Protein backbone atom coordinates (compact mmCIF):
# COMPACT_ATOMS: atom_id res chain seq x y z
CA UNK A 1 0.00 0.00 0.00
CA UNK A 2 1.22 3.51 -0.66
CA UNK A 3 4.15 4.65 -2.68
CA UNK A 4 7.53 2.95 -2.57
CA UNK A 5 10.06 5.08 -0.83
CA UNK A 6 13.29 4.02 -2.53
CA UNK A 7 14.35 7.64 -2.89
CA UNK A 8 13.67 8.36 0.77
CA UNK A 9 16.02 7.92 3.68
CA UNK A 10 13.65 6.06 6.01
CA UNK A 11 12.17 2.72 4.98
CA UNK A 12 8.66 3.56 6.16
CA UNK A 13 6.53 6.31 7.62
CA UNK A 14 7.52 5.85 11.24
CA UNK A 15 11.25 5.87 10.42
CA UNK A 16 10.87 9.13 8.52
CA UNK A 17 8.93 10.53 11.42
CA UNK A 18 11.53 9.51 14.00
CA UNK A 19 14.39 10.85 11.85
CA UNK A 20 12.54 14.13 11.44
CA UNK A 21 11.96 14.53 15.21
CA UNK A 22 15.38 13.33 16.38
CA UNK A 23 17.29 15.55 13.96
CA UNK A 24 15.09 18.49 14.94
CA UNK A 25 16.09 18.03 18.59
CA UNK A 26 19.78 17.81 17.70
CA UNK A 27 19.57 20.96 15.58
CA UNK A 28 17.73 22.78 18.36
CA UNK A 29 20.45 21.76 20.85
CA UNK A 30 23.21 22.87 18.51
CA UNK A 31 21.52 26.21 17.90
CA UNK A 32 20.99 26.78 21.63
CA UNK A 33 24.61 25.89 22.33
CA UNK A 34 25.90 28.34 19.71
CA UNK A 35 23.57 31.05 20.99
CA UNK A 36 24.87 30.46 24.51
CA UNK A 37 28.42 30.59 23.21
CA UNK A 38 27.84 33.92 21.49
CA UNK A 39 26.17 35.41 24.53
CA UNK A 40 28.75 34.27 27.11
CA UNK A 41 31.94 34.63 25.08
CA UNK A 42 33.58 37.63 23.52
CA UNK A 43 33.88 35.96 20.15
CA UNK A 44 37.07 36.66 18.27
CA UNK A 45 39.23 34.51 16.03
CA UNK A 46 41.03 32.90 18.98
CA UNK A 47 37.84 31.88 20.79
CA UNK A 48 36.21 30.65 17.59
CA UNK A 49 39.17 28.55 16.50
CA UNK A 50 39.66 27.22 20.06
CA UNK A 51 36.06 26.03 20.03
CA UNK A 52 36.49 24.28 16.70
CA UNK A 53 39.84 22.88 17.86
CA UNK A 54 38.12 20.65 20.38
CA UNK A 55 37.35 17.11 19.35
CA UNK A 56 33.93 16.92 20.99
CA UNK A 57 32.79 20.07 19.22
CA UNK A 58 33.89 18.74 15.85
CA UNK A 59 31.81 15.64 16.52
CA UNK A 60 28.86 17.77 17.70
CA UNK A 61 29.16 19.89 14.54
CA UNK A 62 29.29 16.83 12.32
CA UNK A 63 26.24 15.45 14.10
CA UNK A 64 24.43 18.74 13.43
CA UNK A 65 25.49 18.66 9.79
CA UNK A 66 24.27 15.08 9.36
CA UNK A 67 21.05 16.12 11.06
CA UNK A 68 20.53 18.96 8.60
CA UNK A 69 21.08 16.51 5.76
CA UNK A 70 18.68 13.92 7.19
CA UNK A 71 16.07 16.52 8.13
CA UNK A 72 16.23 18.15 4.71
CA UNK A 73 16.12 14.81 2.95
CA UNK A 74 12.92 13.70 4.65
CA UNK A 75 11.40 17.16 4.38
CA UNK A 76 12.20 17.73 0.72
CA UNK A 77 11.18 14.19 -0.19
CA UNK A 78 7.80 14.89 1.40
CA UNK A 79 7.38 18.25 -0.31
CA UNK A 80 8.41 16.83 -3.69
CA UNK A 81 5.93 13.96 -3.44
CA UNK A 82 3.19 16.40 -2.42
CA UNK A 83 3.65 18.83 -5.29
CA UNK A 84 5.43 17.10 -8.17
CA UNK A 85 3.26 14.34 -9.56
CA UNK A 86 5.16 13.27 -12.72
CA UNK A 87 7.82 10.74 -11.71
CA UNK A 88 10.80 11.92 -13.79
CA UNK A 89 11.02 15.56 -12.66
CA UNK A 90 10.33 14.44 -9.11
CA UNK A 91 13.14 11.90 -9.21
CA UNK A 92 15.55 14.47 -10.70
CA UNK A 93 14.73 16.98 -7.98
CA UNK A 94 15.16 14.34 -5.27
CA UNK A 95 18.46 13.23 -6.76
CA UNK A 96 19.66 16.85 -6.92
CA UNK A 97 18.73 17.39 -3.27
CA UNK A 98 20.56 14.25 -2.18
CA UNK A 99 23.61 15.23 -4.19
CA UNK A 100 23.72 18.69 -2.64
CA UNK A 101 23.36 17.21 0.85
CA UNK A 102 26.13 14.72 0.17
CA UNK A 103 28.45 17.48 -1.03
CA UNK A 104 27.70 19.56 2.05
CA UNK A 105 28.46 16.67 4.39
CA UNK A 106 31.77 15.77 2.73
CA UNK A 107 32.77 19.41 2.47
CA UNK A 108 31.81 19.92 6.12
CA UNK A 109 34.02 17.03 7.20
CA UNK A 110 36.90 18.52 5.22
CA UNK A 111 36.43 21.89 6.90
CA UNK A 112 35.98 20.50 10.41
CA UNK A 113 39.06 18.28 10.31
CA UNK A 114 41.04 20.62 8.09
CA UNK A 115 41.71 17.89 5.55
Amino acid sequence: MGMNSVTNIGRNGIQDWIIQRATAYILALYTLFLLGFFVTTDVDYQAWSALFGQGWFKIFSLLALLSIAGHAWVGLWTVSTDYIKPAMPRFLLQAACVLVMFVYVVWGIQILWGL
Partner: protein
Amino acid sequence: MLVSLYRYNPEADNAPYMQDVEVEIPEGKDLMVLDVLNLVKEKDPSMSYRRSCREGVCGSDGMNMNGKNGLACITPVSDVVKNNKLVLRPLPGLPVIRDLVVDMGLFYKQYEKVMPYLVNDKPAPAIERLQSPEEREKLDGLYECILCACCSTACPSFWWNPDKFIGPSGLLQAYRFLADSRDTAQAERLENLDDPFSVFRCRGIMNCVSVCPKGLNPTKAIGHIRNLLLQRAT
Protein backbone atom coordinates in the same frame (compact mmCIF):
# COMPACT_ATOMS: atom_id res chain seq x y z
CA MET B 1 -30.94 37.23 1.17
CA LEU B 2 -28.51 36.72 -1.68
CA VAL B 3 -27.53 33.10 -2.25
CA SER B 4 -24.58 32.42 -4.50
CA LEU B 5 -24.60 28.87 -5.83
CA TYR B 6 -21.96 26.78 -7.53
CA ARG B 7 -23.59 25.41 -10.66
CA TYR B 8 -22.22 22.80 -13.00
CA ASN B 9 -24.01 20.46 -15.31
CA PRO B 10 -21.37 18.61 -17.32
CA GLU B 11 -23.90 17.77 -20.03
CA ALA B 12 -24.72 21.43 -20.74
CA ASP B 13 -21.95 23.63 -19.30
CA ASN B 14 -18.38 24.00 -20.48
CA ALA B 15 -17.25 25.14 -17.06
CA PRO B 16 -18.68 25.60 -13.57
CA TYR B 17 -20.05 29.05 -12.72
CA MET B 18 -21.60 30.86 -9.74
CA GLN B 19 -25.30 31.72 -9.93
CA ASP B 20 -26.78 34.42 -7.71
CA VAL B 21 -30.33 33.89 -6.50
CA GLU B 22 -32.37 36.17 -4.28
CA VAL B 23 -34.22 34.12 -1.64
CA GLU B 24 -37.01 35.45 0.58
CA ILE B 25 -36.34 34.39 4.17
CA PRO B 26 -39.55 34.34 6.25
CA GLU B 27 -39.50 37.20 8.78
CA GLY B 28 -38.08 36.38 12.23
CA LYS B 29 -36.97 32.86 11.34
CA ASP B 30 -33.49 31.37 11.36
CA LEU B 31 -33.60 28.68 8.71
CA MET B 32 -31.05 25.95 8.25
CA VAL B 33 -28.95 26.18 5.10
CA LEU B 34 -30.73 23.10 3.75
CA ASP B 35 -34.10 24.91 4.07
CA VAL B 36 -32.67 27.74 1.97
CA LEU B 37 -31.56 25.24 -0.66
CA ASN B 38 -35.05 23.76 -0.68
CA LEU B 39 -36.47 27.24 -1.31
CA VAL B 40 -34.03 27.64 -4.20
CA LYS B 41 -35.08 24.30 -5.62
CA GLU B 42 -38.75 25.32 -5.55
CA LYS B 43 -37.84 28.13 -7.94
CA ASP B 44 -35.30 26.20 -9.98
CA PRO B 45 -35.84 22.42 -9.92
CA SER B 46 -32.58 21.82 -11.79
CA MET B 47 -30.54 22.72 -8.67
CA SER B 48 -28.92 19.48 -7.47
CA TYR B 49 -27.73 18.48 -4.01
CA ARG B 50 -27.87 15.42 -1.76
CA ARG B 51 -29.87 15.22 1.44
CA SER B 52 -31.82 12.60 3.26
CA CYS B 53 -32.38 12.71 7.00
CA ARG B 54 -32.37 16.53 7.36
CA GLU B 55 -31.22 16.15 10.97
CA GLY B 56 -27.46 15.56 10.88
CA VAL B 57 -27.56 11.77 10.95
CA CYS B 58 -27.08 10.48 7.41
CA GLY B 59 -24.12 12.63 6.40
CA SER B 60 -25.28 13.20 2.84
CA ASP B 61 -25.48 17.00 2.68
CA GLY B 62 -21.89 17.93 3.48
CA MET B 63 -21.03 21.10 1.57
CA ASN B 64 -18.96 24.24 1.73
CA MET B 65 -20.92 27.16 3.19
CA ASN B 66 -19.23 30.56 3.03
CA GLY B 67 -15.88 28.82 2.98
CA LYS B 68 -16.47 26.29 5.76
CA ASN B 69 -17.48 22.65 5.36
CA GLY B 70 -20.47 21.38 7.28
CA LEU B 71 -23.86 19.72 7.07
CA ALA B 72 -26.41 22.05 5.51
CA CYS B 73 -29.29 20.54 7.48
CA ILE B 74 -27.93 21.42 10.94
CA THR B 75 -26.13 24.66 10.10
CA PRO B 76 -28.24 27.73 10.90
CA VAL B 77 -27.98 30.39 8.21
CA SER B 78 -27.07 32.94 10.90
CA ASP B 79 -23.94 30.90 11.72
CA VAL B 80 -22.39 31.20 8.29
CA VAL B 81 -23.97 34.11 6.43
CA LYS B 82 -21.76 37.16 5.89
CA ASN B 83 -23.08 40.55 4.77
CA ASN B 84 -26.44 38.96 4.08
CA LYS B 85 -24.82 36.68 1.52
CA LEU B 86 -24.68 32.89 1.53
CA VAL B 87 -22.13 31.20 -0.75
CA LEU B 88 -22.65 27.48 -1.32
CA ARG B 89 -20.06 25.30 -3.01
CA PRO B 90 -19.51 21.54 -3.20
CA LEU B 91 -17.03 19.90 -0.82
CA PRO B 92 -13.57 20.94 -2.05
CA GLY B 93 -11.10 18.51 -3.59
CA LEU B 94 -13.48 15.87 -4.93
CA PRO B 95 -14.69 15.68 -8.54
CA VAL B 96 -18.03 17.41 -9.05
CA ILE B 97 -20.78 15.31 -10.61
CA ARG B 98 -23.29 18.12 -10.76
CA ASP B 99 -23.86 21.36 -8.80
CA LEU B 100 -23.28 20.50 -5.12
CA VAL B 101 -23.05 16.74 -5.72
CA VAL B 102 -19.52 15.36 -5.55
CA ASP B 103 -18.07 11.97 -6.41
CA MET B 104 -17.20 10.38 -3.06
CA GLY B 105 -15.36 7.45 -4.67
CA LEU B 106 -11.86 8.38 -3.47
CA PHE B 107 -13.16 9.09 0.01
CA TYR B 108 -14.79 5.65 0.26
CA LYS B 109 -11.73 3.97 -1.19
CA GLN B 110 -9.65 5.34 1.67
CA TYR B 111 -12.32 4.21 4.11
CA GLU B 112 -12.27 0.71 2.64
CA LYS B 113 -8.48 0.49 3.06
CA VAL B 114 -8.66 0.65 6.86
CA MET B 115 -10.81 -2.51 7.04
CA PRO B 116 -13.73 -0.75 8.77
CA TYR B 117 -15.13 -3.89 10.34
CA LEU B 118 -14.39 -6.05 13.32
CA VAL B 119 -11.88 -8.82 12.65
CA ASN B 120 -11.86 -11.67 15.11
CA ASP B 121 -10.70 -15.15 14.20
CA LYS B 122 -11.59 -16.77 17.53
CA PRO B 123 -14.76 -18.90 17.56
CA ALA B 124 -17.78 -16.76 18.31
CA PRO B 125 -19.16 -17.18 21.84
CA ALA B 126 -22.73 -18.41 22.32
CA ILE B 127 -24.24 -14.97 22.90
CA GLU B 128 -21.91 -12.05 22.23
CA ARG B 129 -18.33 -10.85 22.58
CA LEU B 130 -18.31 -8.98 25.87
CA GLN B 131 -16.54 -5.72 26.62
CA SER B 132 -16.04 -4.09 29.98
CA PRO B 133 -17.51 -0.59 30.36
CA GLU B 134 -13.93 0.76 30.28
CA GLU B 135 -13.16 -1.04 27.04
CA ARG B 136 -16.39 0.23 25.53
CA GLU B 137 -15.59 3.77 26.62
CA LYS B 138 -12.49 3.77 24.42
CA LEU B 139 -14.74 3.82 21.37
CA ASP B 140 -16.50 7.03 22.38
CA GLY B 141 -15.61 9.90 20.08
CA LEU B 142 -14.77 7.39 17.33
CA TYR B 143 -17.85 5.35 16.45
CA GLU B 144 -20.07 8.43 16.01
CA CYS B 145 -18.56 9.35 12.63
CA ILE B 146 -21.24 9.55 9.92
CA LEU B 147 -18.78 9.60 6.98
CA CYS B 148 -19.96 12.98 5.76
CA ALA B 149 -16.45 13.77 4.38
CA CYS B 150 -16.52 17.33 5.72
CA CYS B 151 -13.19 16.70 7.46
CA SER B 152 -11.23 14.95 4.72
CA THR B 153 -12.28 17.51 2.10
CA ALA B 154 -11.11 20.32 4.40
CA CYS B 155 -7.69 18.72 4.79
CA PRO B 156 -4.91 20.09 2.54
CA SER B 157 -2.97 16.85 2.87
CA PHE B 158 -5.99 14.98 1.47
CA TRP B 159 -6.27 17.49 -1.41
CA TRP B 160 -2.66 16.82 -2.42
CA ASN B 161 -2.74 13.02 -2.01
CA PRO B 162 -6.36 11.80 -2.05
CA ASP B 163 -5.19 8.48 -3.48
CA LYS B 164 -2.50 7.76 -0.88
CA PHE B 165 -3.29 9.67 2.34
CA ILE B 166 -6.16 7.97 4.20
CA GLY B 167 -7.45 11.29 5.46
CA PRO B 168 -8.93 12.25 8.83
CA SER B 169 -12.22 10.40 8.45
CA GLY B 170 -10.63 7.09 7.42
CA LEU B 171 -7.96 7.39 10.11
CA LEU B 172 -10.57 8.06 12.78
CA GLN B 173 -12.22 4.81 11.70
CA ALA B 174 -8.85 3.04 11.56
CA TYR B 175 -8.34 3.95 15.20
CA ARG B 176 -11.91 3.01 16.07
CA PHE B 177 -11.02 -0.60 15.21
CA LEU B 178 -7.45 -0.46 16.55
CA ALA B 179 -8.94 0.57 19.90
CA ASP B 180 -11.60 -2.14 19.95
CA SER B 181 -10.82 -4.79 22.57
CA ARG B 182 -12.68 -7.43 20.51
CA ASP B 183 -10.53 -6.95 17.40
CA THR B 184 -7.63 -9.36 16.81
CA ALA B 185 -6.10 -7.82 13.67
CA GLN B 186 -4.17 -4.98 15.28
CA ALA B 187 -0.82 -6.09 13.86
CA GLU B 188 -2.20 -6.35 10.34
CA ARG B 189 -3.96 -3.00 10.63
CA LEU B 190 -0.77 -1.26 11.74
CA GLU B 191 1.23 -2.99 9.02
CA ASN B 192 -1.12 -1.50 6.44
CA LEU B 193 -0.69 2.02 7.81
CA ASP B 194 3.08 2.06 8.10
CA ASP B 195 4.03 3.72 4.80
CA PRO B 196 5.04 7.37 4.37
CA PHE B 197 1.59 8.43 3.11
CA SER B 198 -1.33 6.68 4.81
CA VAL B 199 -0.92 8.28 8.24
CA PHE B 200 2.17 10.44 8.10
CA ARG B 201 0.92 13.00 5.62
CA CYS B 202 -1.12 14.42 8.47
CA ARG B 203 0.55 17.71 9.31
CA GLY B 204 -1.58 18.46 12.34
CA ILE B 205 -3.31 21.38 10.65
CA MET B 206 -6.52 20.44 12.48
CA ASN B 207 -8.96 21.68 9.85
CA CYS B 208 -10.66 18.33 10.37
CA VAL B 209 -11.34 19.07 14.03
CA SER B 210 -12.68 22.54 13.32
CA VAL B 211 -15.24 21.38 10.74
CA CYS B 212 -16.51 18.03 12.07
CA PRO B 213 -20.26 18.48 12.54
CA LYS B 214 -20.27 15.70 15.13
CA GLY B 215 -17.57 17.39 17.22
CA LEU B 216 -15.10 14.53 16.73
CA ASN B 217 -11.32 14.86 16.88
CA PRO B 218 -9.53 12.98 14.07
CA THR B 219 -6.19 14.65 14.90
CA LYS B 220 -6.22 13.05 18.33
CA ALA B 221 -7.00 9.62 16.84
CA ILE B 222 -4.15 10.09 14.36
CA GLY B 223 -1.83 10.85 17.30
CA HIS B 224 -2.89 7.57 18.94
CA ILE B 225 -2.19 5.65 15.72
CA ARG B 226 1.25 7.25 15.50
CA ASN B 227 1.98 6.17 19.06
CA LEU B 228 0.95 2.60 18.26
CA LEU B 229 3.23 2.63 15.20
CA LEU B 230 6.02 4.02 17.35
CA GLN B 231 5.58 1.28 19.96
CA ARG B 232 5.64 -1.31 17.24
CA ALA B 233 8.81 0.10 15.67
CA THR B 234 10.90 0.50 18.80
